[in-house]
Each structure stands twice: as C-alpha cells, then as structure tokens.
C-alpha cells in the first residue's frame, strides 16, 4: 500500500522536474527544486532509507536552496528565453530515455528479497554487525567502519569544495568594508517576529543537531546530517542578525580550522589504528575489547565528520553571502 503512495509522490516528482526545466524564472526553479528535494526525501523514507531521507532533507531542501539563493542574489534571477540546440537535445534525450527504459526490463523485480542485491553482501552486514560492532543502526556501522574509507573520501570531497569556494571567492570577504555591503548584509534585524522566534529556536536547533550527531548509532543520523543541521542553525543566526555578527561569533579563520580539524581527526584515527598494529581505519585495535574499539572509533570519526561538515558548509555560505558586489 505504501508503495502506491510512493508512486503518487513520484508522479508529482516528474511533474515538478518538467516544471523546473520549463520555467524561465530561476528563482521559481530554485523553489521547485526545494519541492523536488522534499518529494525525493519522502520517497527515500517510504523505501526504508531513513538516514538518506534525513540527509536529503537537510542538504537538498535546506543547504542547497540557501546556496542557490546566495548565487542568485549575486547574479540575475531571470533566464533569457532562448533555448539553443533545442531539437538536437530533445532527440538525444528521448533516445537515451528509451534506451534506459529498454534496459529496465531484465531488472530484478522491485523489492524482490531474492535479488542479488539482497542476497550477496548485505546479509553479511545485517548478520555480523551485532557481533562485531554491536550498534543498532547498520547504516552507521557500514558508513563508519566497513566502508569507512569511502566516508573519509567523502569528508575530503567536502573539504575540497570548501577550499575551492574559498579560493574562488576569497577567504576574507569585505564584510563591513563598505557602507553598501553593510546595509545589504544587515539581515532581518528589523523584522521583529522572525527575529524573536528565530532566536528562540536557534539553541534548540543546535541541541537537536547534537542529538542527531550522538544518536547516530541508535537511530537515523550521524555526523553528516548533524553537521548540516548545526550549520543550518548558524545560517539562521546569520539570516536574522546579519553576516557581520555571525562572522564575529565564528570567524572565517575558525571555520577554516574546523574544516581542516575534522578531516585530520578522521584521518588521525586511521593513522593511530595503523600505529597500534591494525590496518588503516581498523578501530578494533583502539581498545582491548574489539567491539568497544569499533564503537569508540565510530564515535570519533563521526565527530570528525560533523566538525568538518559544519565548518565547510558555513564557510561556503559566508563566502557567498558576504561577497561584495
């Protein structure tokens, strides 16, 4: 039955996607992108992917909307109406869609418990996690330990993007340098109601972020989601009080330090494992009891992920928001 809901949501998703491509107002496209993101996230939830749904909501609907708006504020919100290569593109796209649909016919049936995906590697994770790592959230176990090296890579992908944006847009944007920039970046200080409600909520948002961070072994969540939520909370502060105040609380240098420190914590845990005689990222050697060692390692690396992601997302946000024109 829930699958029917999924089908309904997917139909809405296709409509949204077509509308995104059709509209010429970029602001509208970004808004619809937010809706598409929520739809995708709801679908993930229906398909049993709670962790992914949380990430998609925090990143797709939250952070990415904020970033797109930041870029739109610095460029134009209106697209020119010409579309080049319309016919050729349509032909390419329709042909490729048909090929893709053709390729679907030999696929294992949807949700089939006997498909290779369900029978080969994944049962091992579900079966062995209680024995080796002993935490309820298998997704966190796979993310942090079995495939911890991928996650290390992921942290450095984020780090690279942060470095890149700072390299392109400057690490010390001229906040408050000119009267004009200060005026534009003053935030919503004159809107009383959002300001009061927002300030009331910020501590709870950060608290919730910390809960997601440390509850990641038991429920949906983990360092990445927590980092995105905490960053969103601080972005809220910047929206309400203006860029300048937010940068005074957390200067760009500090954020850069967080970016580097997060990656170093993660990598450092790996190196310590190596020194203690295990393989890289083999947390079992961290404690005399291998299971305890695994749990300790996962908590440490998740902390590293959280710190790095918070630092990077905030750096990127500030780089856009404080860009002087």
């Amino acid at each position: 039955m829930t699958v029917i809901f999924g089908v309904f949501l997917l139909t809405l998703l296709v409509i949204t996607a077509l509308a995104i491509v059709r509209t010429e107002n970029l602001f509208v496209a970004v808004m619809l992108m937010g809706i598409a993101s929520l739809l995708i996230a709801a679908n993930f939830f229906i398909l049993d992917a709670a962790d992914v749904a949380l990430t998609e909501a925090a990143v797709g609907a939250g952070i990415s909307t904020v970033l797109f708006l930041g870029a739109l504020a610095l460029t134009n919100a209106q697209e020119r109406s010409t579309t080049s290569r319309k016919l050729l593109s349509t032909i390419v796209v329709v042909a490729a869609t048909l090929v893709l649909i053709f390729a679907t016919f030999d696929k294992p049936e949807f949700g089939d418990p006997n498909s290779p995906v369900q029978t080969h590697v994944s049962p091992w994770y579900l079966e062995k996690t209680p024995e080796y790592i002993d935490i309820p959230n298998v997704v966190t176990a796979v993310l942090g330990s079995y495939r911890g090296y991928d996650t290390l890579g992921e942290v450095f992908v984020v780090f690279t993007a942060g470095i890149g944006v700072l390299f392109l847009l400057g690490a010390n944007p001229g906040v408050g340098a000119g009267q004009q920039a200060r005026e534009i970046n003053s935030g919503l200080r004159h809107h009383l109601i959002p300001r009061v409600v927002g300030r009331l909520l910020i501590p709870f948002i950060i608290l919730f972020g910390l809960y997601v961070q440390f509850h990641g072994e038991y429920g949906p969540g983990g360092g990445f989601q927590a980092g995105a939520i905490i960053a969103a909370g601080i972005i809220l502060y910047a929206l309400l009080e203006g860029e300048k105040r937010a940068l005074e609380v957390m200067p760009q240098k500090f954020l850069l330090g967080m970016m580097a420190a997060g990656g170093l914590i993660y990598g450092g845990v790996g190196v310590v494992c190596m020194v203690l005689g295990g393989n890289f990222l083999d947390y079992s050697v961290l404690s005399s009891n291998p299971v305890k060692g695994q749990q300790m390692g996962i908590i440490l690396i998740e902390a590293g992920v959280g710190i790095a992601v918070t630092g990077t997302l905030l750096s990127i946000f500030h780089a856009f928001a404080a860009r002087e024109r």
Partner: protein
Amino acid sequence: MKILGLYYYWVFAILLMTGFYAVIAKPNLIKKMIGLALFQSAVFLLYITMGHIVGGTAPIFSSVTGDTLYSNPLPQVLILTAIVVGISTTALGLGIIVRIKEEYGSIEEDEIQEIDKQ
C-alpha cells in the same frame, strides 16, 4: 506489482533525462547547475530503489521491530556519500558562476562566447 516496480525505474530514467536536457539545452549557467542537481538526484533514486525489500523496514535494529526483514543498508551508505558529493559539486559550480558573472557580467553561455570572441 511488476509494473509498479518498473514505474520506479522509469521515473529514474525520465528524471535523469529531464536533468540532462536542462544541462545540454539551456544556455543559462545556473539552470545548468539546477539540471545537474536533478540529474544526480535521479541516480540517488535508482540506488535506493534497488535496496528496498518488500515488507522490509529500515536497517536499524530496534526493540519495537523484533525479528523482521531489513532493507539493504549498502545502497543507503553509498547514496549518503553521493549526496555529499553532489552538494560539493553544486557549491563549487555556483562559486565559479559567481566569478563568471563578475568577470563577464553575464551568465548566459552564448553571450560569454561572444564576449570571448572579441
């Protein structure tokens, strides 16, 4: 049920190609980025769909669920990573667009090509 399952894959195909169309046909750089984000989301959907198991639940053990069928955790982990990669690419792409706007005063591909020809 068979058609329902296929429907998920078809939506993946259509979504993928809608995003791809925006990337190749639209001259506006931000629109291209939006298309790219859509394009990547479609792939996320593909992975999560294949990890789903009928009658299963999220792969998080809990006292409430007891002894049940769990969906495959591995595609979820992969997509967590891929979502992060996606937002990183988007952020960097938008950074480049902002710089292009500053240097050229335009974010339309054909206009930029015209300016470069001069």
